[in-house]
């Protein structure tokens, strides 16, 4: 006899629900395996005590009130905080809200993204008044005409030019006329980024003076 079969027989024997043929089978088992008698005694004791114990008391009308209370709880949980807005409007607003969130995130990213030319020098340079740019442009033209180096000389030369030529203004002009397709301007930017701190401060002072 398998264990689970023996368990079932002993349980049903203890409950008193076995038919005669099965009772004999159990009694035979109990003779063969006396240790089962102790188990049977515990099973009987459990069933006796359980049967003496009636159902636990519950408040009267508990089951009558159960469904209304459940309905309240379900509807509290499913009520929307935005229920005053018609559902069709909620459907229409939802994509807009998502779009706004995405736009905000993109804007935030752009504002936090490091600016390639966000150095102190560039910040000042880019805020220079248009008149000053025009003035710088004229001076650049004059300078280029006088020295005949327009577009033909290494841009690093410009950083070494005497102060009287306002070389910082050359940067000003070039940087403000930013055009990534213009190789010269890219070169100027590279020069600017490669300046030593001392030089940068010098240009900065000059720019302040110009402004």
């Amino acid at each position, binding site marked *: 006899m*398998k*264990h*689970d*079969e023996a*368990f*079932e027989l*002993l*349980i049903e024997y*203890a409950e008193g629900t076995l038919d005669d043929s099965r009772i004999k089978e159990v009694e035979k088992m109990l003779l063969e395996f006396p240790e089962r008698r102790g*188990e049977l*005694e*515990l*099973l*009987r*004791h*459990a*069933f006796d*005590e*359980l049967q*003496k*114990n*009636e159902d*636990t008391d*519950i*408040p009267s009308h*508990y*089951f009558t009130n*159960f*469904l209304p*209370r*459940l*309905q309240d*709880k*379900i509807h509290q*949980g499913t009520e929307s905080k935005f229920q005053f807005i018609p559902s069709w409007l909620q459907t229409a607003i939802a994509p807009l809200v998502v779009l706004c969130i995405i736009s905000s995130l993109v804007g935030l990213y752009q504002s936090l993204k490091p600016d390639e030319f966000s150095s102190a020098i560039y910040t000042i340079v880019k805020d220079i008044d248009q008149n000053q740019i025009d003035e710088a442009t004229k001076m650049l033209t004059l300078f280029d005409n006088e020295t005949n180096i327009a577009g033909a000389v290494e841009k690093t030369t410009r950083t070494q030019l005497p102060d009287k030529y306002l070389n910082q203004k050359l940067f000003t002009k070039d940087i403000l006329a930013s055009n990534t397709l213009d190789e010269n301007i890219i070169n100027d930017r590279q020069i600017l980024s490669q300046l030593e701190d001392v030089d940068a401060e010098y240009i900065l002072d000059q720019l302040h003076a110009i402004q």
Partner: protein
Amino acid sequence: MNQDDELQLIQEFRNGNEQAYNKLVLRYQEKIYWIVRRMIPDHDEADDVTQNVFIKAYQSLKTFKGDSSFYTWIYRIAVNSSLNEIRRKKIRKTFSLDESETIQLHSDDDQPLERMEKEERTKLIQKAIEQLPEKQKKVFVLRYYEELPYEEIAKILKTSVGGLKANYFHAVKKIGDYLKHET
């Protein structure tokens, strides 16, 4: 109400008929309450768990696949929710987060002896069931109190019939042993 009727009600509920769900609740509320209550002796706690069982059913019924019958499905939710609550209580008790033992003050003078004895016996049996391992507790409640056939319990607990018989046998034996030593 047979299984086909229940499937019909589920379908109606899915189509937006709340009354169909209410019929299922009315049919099962007592059974579910008692399954929960056998495992969680306190009425208020058992009531909370029972309500949560039906709320879970309400929320999940739209995705109910019908692989098992509704009652197998909801019994499973009830048994698992009860055990989760028992685990949660054990954790709270371990960390002394709440006073789970409610102190009940009775005036012994106006309470008949018989009633007191009954209360004592009830508490003792509740403790005997509480001390069972989780699996045996589930099997005992479903078999003894709900009188479900092993085959149905096997579906609810997703286990083998042979294992269930062994679990039930050991559960009853442990209850007998506990009561023998405590009385």
